[in-house]
């Protein structure tokens, strides 16, 4: 009788231990899941909108730096991206560049790019390359120059002329970007414009 009770008690203890170990494992799994879940989502406060039940409205106190009319004129402006230098290879007419018409110009303005080499006097220039019309969102990556250049550093200008895509292809105001043109013996480096 005593032996049977002891055996029963021993079985009971083993059973409890097994349950507790299982509980511990479940707890650990829960912890791991929670950490992963919390780590993958930003913790949002009550006013962060999404899922918080608070309606997001336009803040009337947000100010425009520019007067409204002037800001509107920016909307109609031509957007041009520039850099300060361009590196190409010596002894070849082929050059890799990135002449880019930003998407912001939508379908309104197409751009032409002209690479001009400044004369030593700074008064005149020699045109090395002229592109056709580049539509918004498009790039020109490869150009062929009018002549090869010797190794060195040159003053140059990237002349960007926008056009309205009406029937007359009207020219708008334009931009000259003064750059340093590096002509290297080695392989060229691609530079965005």
């Amino acid at each position, binding site marked *: 009788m005593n032996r049977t009770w002891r055996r029963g008690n021993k079985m009971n203890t083993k059973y409890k231990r097994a349950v507790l170990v299982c509980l511990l494992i479940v707890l650990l799994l829960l912890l791991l899941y929670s*950490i992963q879940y919390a780590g993958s989502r930003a913790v949002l406060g009550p006013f962060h909108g999404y899922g918080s039940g608070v309606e997001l409205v336009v803040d009337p106190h947000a100010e425009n730096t520019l007067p409204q009319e002037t800001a509107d004129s920016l909307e109609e402006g031509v957007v041009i991206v*520039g850099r300060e230098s361009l590196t190409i290879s010596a002894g070849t007419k082929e050059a890799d560049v990135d002449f880019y018409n930003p998407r912001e110009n939508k379908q309104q303005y197409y751009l032409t790019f002209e690479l001009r080499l400044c004369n030593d006097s700074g008064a005149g220039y020699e045109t090395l390359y002229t592109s056709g019309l580049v539509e918004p969102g498009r790039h020109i990556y490869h150009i062929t120059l009018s002549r090869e250049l010797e190794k060195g550093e040159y003053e140059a200008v990237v002349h960007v002329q926008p056009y309205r895509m009406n029937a007359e292809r009207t*020219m708008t105001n334009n931009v000259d970007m*003064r750059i340093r043109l590096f002509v290297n013996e080695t392989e060229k480096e691609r530079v965005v414009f």
Partner: protein
Amino acid sequence: MKRILSLVLLMSFILPGSVILRTAGETITQDSGESSSSLTVDYNAGVTYTVTIPASVTFSDTEKEVERALQVSNVVLNAGSVLNVNLTSLNQFKMMCGEGYIEYGLKINHNEAPEGNNYTVLTVPAGENTGWAILNFSTDLQKEHALYAGNYTDTLTFTVVIN
């Protein structure tokens, strides 16, 4: 048995606490005495900018003053450099139609531009991401030199120079 029970209880108190730490964005450091390895993250930011120019300025009999904005944004320059935008007119601030012309004037940020044909209208020093200028164009549409009927135009060139 009691040890296991207390361990489970202890874990159930500690674990949610560690989750809160994690969600609050705190850095959890593991004081395990292990050696750490470092990772160098490099990015070579080239000099770049985006310029937005007024496409055109149009006068009419009813609109003799026009305000336009020039903006430079996303400016990344070498330390100590300055980006200047200069403005020149193809016809010395005259709208041309053949040999006939109509003059117009320029104000830069509401200040009268001096005599000349090459103005620095905007300067953005290194460290500043953006800059803008307000350009006011005006004409009294005096037609004493407007010899011909037709469209009188001029072209403005914005020259970006980094010094």
